[in-house]
């Protein structure tokens, strides 16, 4: 396949191209798939993708379109693709905005500490090392070890190269009681703490045993106004909704409920958008358009103080300083609840069927597969009920735990309190 510099030269040869961006992504992946504890499939990927955005300036407008390079491409086919892409770019003209200006070249590629298939083996061993009690098992385990190197260049001389590696574990802890029940468990991480993997899987097995003995909420006399504590993806999704509210795009598309200086919450928390943050797997030094990322505080003491987002939309909104599109958000500065909160009657949501959040109306909720009702030393596992709420109401009163968590889903990483404590959620038995 032609490399990034060869493609750049072919683009430069076409004088009708005013500006360009080229992104080359090289990925390797080693994967193992198990049925119960038996190996079913081993996979190995070694791929490169190369995509090019071309820009044409027509009067005071800018047109853009893109093409990919594939292994079959020759100089002639690339030439044809450039011509075809330019034609498309001229059909979709938008107001002008700049591409990322020249930056000092960046090369932050680091090598894996050990080979990827060694990590694959070690992670699998750590997963299956988890102690299973009678009637407990792991099923449908999949382990991926992924490396990804991104090289971005543009016509202003930006040249940034960086990499990420991570491993992904998906497994189904199963418990055979009166009926066989299961829960879904997945995690993506980059640390090589194999003991922690084993410990986390053992906790997941512990949860599935709870599910096997769980009662339907409707079969209990637990009051429906019991405070609900939410963690994990659902809570990260809840907090991320407010970061999205303050993205330039929300304002640009008029879909925002908040503007700068609006009070989001009585809770004096701070939201900081960051390019890189320890433990955040989506972290990177530049965004998808090569814009250098540092950090920006967008919520301070519960009040919106700044917008954030990409260079194009930031330019359209006449922002003095554009931040770039951050991949990580960090919640800090809040007054955490004391330990007493965890001794009071409450319901901890351990596993959702499908957490949902609808940004425009603010609806959030989902079917709960496992929750634990806790009251002092009493623990009652619950299942088979749903909950719902409205993010714009809940954010006003939500409280946070002192212990923290870090998770990466859907291209964004969250770092902040592990538990959100909600008092205005509707439980449906």
């Amino acid at each position, binding site marked *: 396949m032609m490399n990034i510099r060869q493609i750049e030269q072919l683009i430069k040869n076409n004088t009708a191209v005013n500006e360009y961006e080229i992104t080359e992504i090289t990925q390797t992946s080693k994967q193992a798939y198990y049925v119960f504890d038996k*190996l079913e499939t081993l996979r190995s990927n070694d791929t490169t993708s190369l995509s090019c955005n071309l820009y044409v300036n027509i009067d005071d407008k800018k047109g853009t379109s893109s093409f*990919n390079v594939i292994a079959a491409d020759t100089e002639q086919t690339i030439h044809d693709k450039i011509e075809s892409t330019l*034609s498309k770019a001229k059909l979709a003209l938008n107001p002008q905005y700049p591409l990322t200006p020249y930056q000092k070249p960046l090369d932050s590629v680091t090598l894996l500490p050990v080979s990827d298939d060694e990590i694959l083996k070690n992670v699998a061993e750590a997963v299956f090392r988890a102690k299973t009690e009678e009637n407990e098992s792991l099923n449908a385990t999949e382990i991926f070890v992924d490396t990804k190197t991104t090289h971005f260049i543009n016509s202003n001389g930006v040249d940034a190269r960086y990499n990420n590696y991570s491993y992904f574990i998906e497994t189904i802890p199963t418990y055979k009681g009166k009926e066989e029940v299961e829960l879904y468990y997945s995690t993506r991480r980059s640390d090589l703490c194999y003991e922690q993997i084993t410990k986390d899987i053992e906790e997941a097995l512990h949860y599935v045993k709870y599910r096997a003995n769980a009662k339907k909420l409707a079969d209990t006399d637990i009051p429906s106004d019991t405070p609900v504590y939410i963690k994990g993806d659902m809570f990260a999704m809840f907090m991320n909704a407010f970061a999205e509210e303050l993205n330039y795009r929300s304002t640009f598309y008029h879909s925002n409920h908040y503007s700068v200086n609006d009070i989001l919450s009585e809770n004096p928390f701070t939201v900081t958008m960051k390019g890189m943050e320890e433990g955040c797997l989506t972290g990177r030094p530049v965004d998808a358009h090569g814009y250098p990322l540092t950090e920006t505080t967008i919520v301070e003491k519960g009040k919106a103080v700044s917008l954030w987002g990409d260079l194009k939309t930031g330019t359209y909104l006449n922002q003095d300083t554009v931040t770039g599109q951050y991949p990580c958000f960090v919640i800090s500065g809040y007054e955490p609840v004391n330990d007493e909160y965890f001794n009071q009657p409450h319901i901890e949501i351990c596993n959702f069927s499908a957490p949902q959040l609808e940004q425009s109306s603010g609806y959030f909720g989902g079917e709960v597969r496992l929750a634990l009702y806790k009251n002092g030393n009493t623990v009652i596992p619950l299942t088979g009920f749903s909950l719902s709420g409205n993010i714009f109401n809940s954010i006003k009163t939500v409280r946070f735990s002192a212990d923290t968590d870090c998770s990466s*889903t859907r291209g964004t990483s969250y770092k902040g309190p592990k538990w959100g404590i909600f008092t205005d959620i509707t439980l449906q038995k």
Partner: protein
Amino acid sequence: MSLNQFLKDRKQVCIDLVNELEKEYVYVSVLGSYSKSKKVISSTRESAVSESEDDCGFVIKVYDGTCFKEYSCNDVAGLTVENIKEHISMNHYQTGYVKVRLMEEQPLVKSFEREDLHVLPDEEVMQRLTEVRNYLQDYDSRIIMVHTMYVHRETSSVFVSSKRVLDQFYEWNNAAAVAVVRDGQTIQQYFGTAAECDTLLTLTKLSSMKEEIAEKALHLLDATAIEPGVYDVITDPSISGLIAHEAFGHGVEMDMFVKNRAKAKDYVGKYVASPVVNMRDGAASCISAASYFFDDDGILAHDTQIIKDGILQTGISDALSAYQLGTEPTGNGRRQGFDRKAYTRMTNTFFEPGKDKLDDMIASIDYGYYLCNTDNGMEDPKNWQIQCTAAYGLEIRNGKFTGKIVAPVVISGSVTELLGSITMVSDQLEVHGMGMCGKGCKEWVYVADGGPHLKARAKLG
């Protein structure tokens, strides 16, 4: 348009590679895939025309008597058996291997093709989208943003094994218009979609919906939250399709049978729904978003009857699951891309039509809701729990719409209770080819689903 030239050029390389690898492995196949999508966007704030070759590469699959091994790469030209062995010889952990019984492959050499019937130039596509956009923008000042989009997708693949040399080319179009409405701090959105193997028809259908999109979006500004409870409901074809997909689509994926993760495994031949319910899945069951000619295992497309008169007939299967279960694969082996594993996946999944008239169904409701516009869903095949979200519901009292709208509406509860409660099935079938489906939290593939209107009793929240 026809089979991608790159795949054509590499077909003989794939055949040679299979011949070489067969000397060392019990099973060998090579799949080459290529997909290209063109996207045209006309929105209030910005427009775009772009083309991307999303998936272009090869996967070599071998079985050495222990486990299956795959190597995915951009190109097979120049690859040697030694190169491949180097990539698939991985350090790995195992306490044993799954047992498989390879199926005798029937020899087949064939090419398949399905073209877009009316292709339009990019300029005309943009013009038609912009007309829809302008109509919606001018309809009411509360419509603050309109986003219209057209996506043309072409897919080529080549499959080579010891007895099969297959290639296919097919196209599909999706179009959508989204209207975002705002009244003070209340923001809602409504979208209309059209999906056909015909660009002209797709865009004509989208255009015909523009008034409905505007009206529905504005109506949503009045939406309130539903009072949670159990109601009589009528599902529109998109919600019927979502239920089909979540209930006995995921529930009968036979890779879940292999892993003992689907309760349906023990219910083949038993009632799982009311006797008025019939359901099918298959790439050959209709022409829609997931209508291919052969799957990523080289198995020809099927039309599988999953439920007949309320009784579960069979599941759907990829080749590897069939090898483990000792059953016949049903052409449901699909990969997200050449660099992902094949799993059992749904294709076009739908309830079959019945004999009832929609008006009679609405008239039969004392108090309930007409649930519309699929949003998303989730299933639990092991414990038969389901969750389906409708964008909105319209209240029905005494057989008539009251004008009250609730949004969004989440259906949840037991799969068999929901399907067992179906008492009426309308006489019209609609299959919607706009969706994507994941497995766990990954492995996204294009799917279609649909059905007639259904009358059922459901837990709503």
